[in-house]
């Protein structure tokens, strides 16, 4: 057991050493196209009919040109509905980032962009004290908004994005008459959604094509 822990620690240190060796400086290329970034994110969900919630997830980016980047993400958001129901969202999707200004990479700190995209959207609602009463649905959604990278080093950035996501599917609603709580599905698509504010941490790990 002891030797296994030591071995795992050794492997972890080796991995970290490898990533540190890459450091935060990058070779000079004519184009920024081809950079792949990897990172984690926290999301605050507001103005949802369920209430506000916090989410955690991750993403990777593939930059297509100096002005266009793509963001591929997955989020898990949990929302408390009036202390009676848990509403869970899973978003798996992608967005296109268009940089408003040219040449705003590091050493310039602020790199603003507009963002729009699509995602697959899973929602499950569960009555807290009676987990047997639950309903879920898969759907599709589109999102658009604005954001900015804050380039801390050549490889590292923190990004703040604010976007509104509209669900293109039948929503699940909580029906509470004071004595019983039930989950029902809307018969029509209501185009409801939520405002998602995301803080993400991103690290450029590789350049897929070198130009």
């Amino acid at each position: 057991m002891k030797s296994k822990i030591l071995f795992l620690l050794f492997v972890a240190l080796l991995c970290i050493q490898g990533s540190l060796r890459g450091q935060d400086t990058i070779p000079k290329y004519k184009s920024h196209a081809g950079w792949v970034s990897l990172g984690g994110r926290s999301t605050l969900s507001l103005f949802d009919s369920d209430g506000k919630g916090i989410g955690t997830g991750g993403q990777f980016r593939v930059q297509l040109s100096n002005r266009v980047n793509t963001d591929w993400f997955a989020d898990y958001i949990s929302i408390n509905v009036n202390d009676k129901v848990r509403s869970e969202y899973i978003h798996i999707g992608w967005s296109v980032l268009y940089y408003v200004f040219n040449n705003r990479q590091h050493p310039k700190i602020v790199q603003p962009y507009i963002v729009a995209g699509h995602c697959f959207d899973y929602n499950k609602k569960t009555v807290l004290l009676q987990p047997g009463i639950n309903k879920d649905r898969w759907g599709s959604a589109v999102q658009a908004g604005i954001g900015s990278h804050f380039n801390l080093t050549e490889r590292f950035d923190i990004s703040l994005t604010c976007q509104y996501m509209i669900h293109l599917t039948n929503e699940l609603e909580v029906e509470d008459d004071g004595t019983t709580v039930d989950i029902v599905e809307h018969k029509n698509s209501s185009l409801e959604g939520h405002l998602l504010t995301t803080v993400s941490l991103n690290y450029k790990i590789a350049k897929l094509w070198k130009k």
Partner: protein
Amino acid sequence: MEKVKATRFTLIVLLFVQVRVHAQQADIIRPGLIRAQLTISPSYMFGDKHTYFYLHGNLEGFLNKKISVVGETYYYLGDQTSNNSKYEYNHSVFFGLSRHFTKKNNDLYIGLQPGISLTKLNANENNLTSTSVGVNPLFSTVVGYNFFVNRVFHFFVQTRFITGEHNYDIHQSLTELRFSAGLGFNLNMLKAK
């Protein structure tokens, strides 16, 4: 007599530490520095006004003097306020980065770390027949200070503000302030340029 001996011993230790610091001030905080620590961390949870304890471990790597990537875990140890804890457990894992403000061996930092908690309520204390395990998204910010004594160890203090919710069985706010302090270990994995 014992007191005098103890004082002498403390002075010798302090002198030794000071000599080591002067001898090795050159560039401990630089790209490739890895630091790790394990400590007992008390906390204050705003929702139920209870004090909890965690076994707190972290591993951090410096990409340059200003930026580091860090992973941290908290293993729930129990409730100090009450004999019967509201939680059976409330473990958590965080991953993120920190921005460091360094001067010689002093390192003040702030950081952002998304995370998740693995939480289960205590059924008896919450008047429930049974409880289920919840995976809850968390968001945390950290402020801390490290003093690198030499190339091997450092002292640290850290405060973490966590926000999140446990939405299983009964809604519980997981908004919490955690404190950590102690002795950590560090190692320079890359040669100085």
